[in-house]
């Protein structure tokens, strides 16, 4: 009974943290100088793009190994990394698919003559496809029987994706349209890099023990929070358009 309550409390706290992580960048880029709204689906597709950037950064923080928060079992963190990766892939596909659907001329931005920041986005998509597909356990064991080799290549691909994604977002300039927004991104990027370099803090606070059999919380938290952010941003954009 006590364990169940503790699980729920940890799940709620972590959901709130994830929600905050996903919403904050969206709120920041909408601040002054506010980007001019286009139409709902276009802006919503770019919401997906920003969520991919946030998730790409979060994936460097939650790298599959147990951390001090939340106090779930080690398996939860492995699931969390995988779920966040799949969601990032889905959102990136959605970002491209929705934009091409509302604006078919954007196909021009997938050609070799496209502006460099769009090519960076395209490369990031291709690298993420390779990263996600090669990380499916069935394929991973065949491609890299040695786990350490897999981890090295995975880290290399992930850094390529993050670098290309940041270049794509910054140079597009639609939402990253002021120096203070760029400064915030730089600070967050440095914090994530520092977190990725140092060893994870796995020690729990005194009096807290890891909750066993809590791996399943990952799916529920990540997918629910993502859907919530997508739905909330869509309705917010609809309201903005109505004004």
């Amino acid at each position, binding site marked *: 009974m006590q364990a169940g309550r503790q699980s729920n409390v940890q799940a709620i706290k972590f959901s709130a943290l994830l929600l905050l992580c996903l919403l904050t960048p969206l709120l920041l880029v909408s601040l002054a100088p506010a980007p001019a709204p286009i139409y709902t689906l276009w802006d919503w597709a770019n919401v997906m793009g920003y969520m991919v950037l946030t998730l790409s950064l979060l994936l460097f923080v939650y790298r599959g190994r147990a951390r001090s928060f939340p106090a779930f079992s080690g398996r939860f963190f492995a699931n969390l990394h995988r779920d966040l990766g799949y969601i990032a892939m889905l959102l990136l596909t959605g970002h491209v698919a929705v934009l091409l659907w509302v604006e078919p*001329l954007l196909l021009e931005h997938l050609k070799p003559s496209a502006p*460099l920041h769009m090519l*960076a986005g395209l490369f990031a998509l291709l690298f993420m496809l390779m990263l996600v597909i090669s990380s499916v356990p069935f394929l991973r064991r065949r491609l890299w029987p040695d786990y350490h080799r897999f981890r090295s*290549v995975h*880290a290399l691909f992930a*850094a390529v994706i993050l670098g290309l994604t940041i270049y794509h977002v910054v140079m597009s300039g639609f939402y990253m349209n002021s120096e203070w927004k760029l400064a915030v991104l730089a600070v967050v990027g440095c914090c994530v890099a520092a977190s990725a370099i140092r060893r994870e803090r796995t020690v729990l606070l005194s009096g807290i023990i890891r909750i066993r059999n809590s791996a399943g919380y990952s799916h529920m938290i990540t997918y629910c929070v993502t859907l919530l952010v997508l739905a909330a941003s869509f309705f917010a954009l609809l309201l903005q358009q109505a004004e």
Partner: protein
Amino acid sequence: MSARPVWLWMLAGLIVAVLLLVAAEQYRMATVPSKPLLPVSFEHLDHKKTQCADCHHNFIDDTGGGTCYNCHKYEPEIAPDIEKMFHDFCFDCHVTTRREGEDSGPMRECAGCHKT
């Protein structure tokens, strides 16, 4: 033999990303000048409030003659930036106009200008 730390692989990844962009830019600079441009619909009547020289800068700064494309499409030094330059140029003006609460031209919707 101990495995290399993960951060070294991440650093290598960032270097790969930079090299990839440099290679793409080289290829792009070679291909863009020969690439046909999308047709653009530009109505002078819709831009009556704008000073001519805001766009036709060569009238006053003596940097060239003829149509925009004479330089922006066919000069090898500036041709690769034609898309970004024209997009930024139109976009900045339209954003400013919209922020002032006035009707502006297309902001980012491609088909607003490129009527194919």
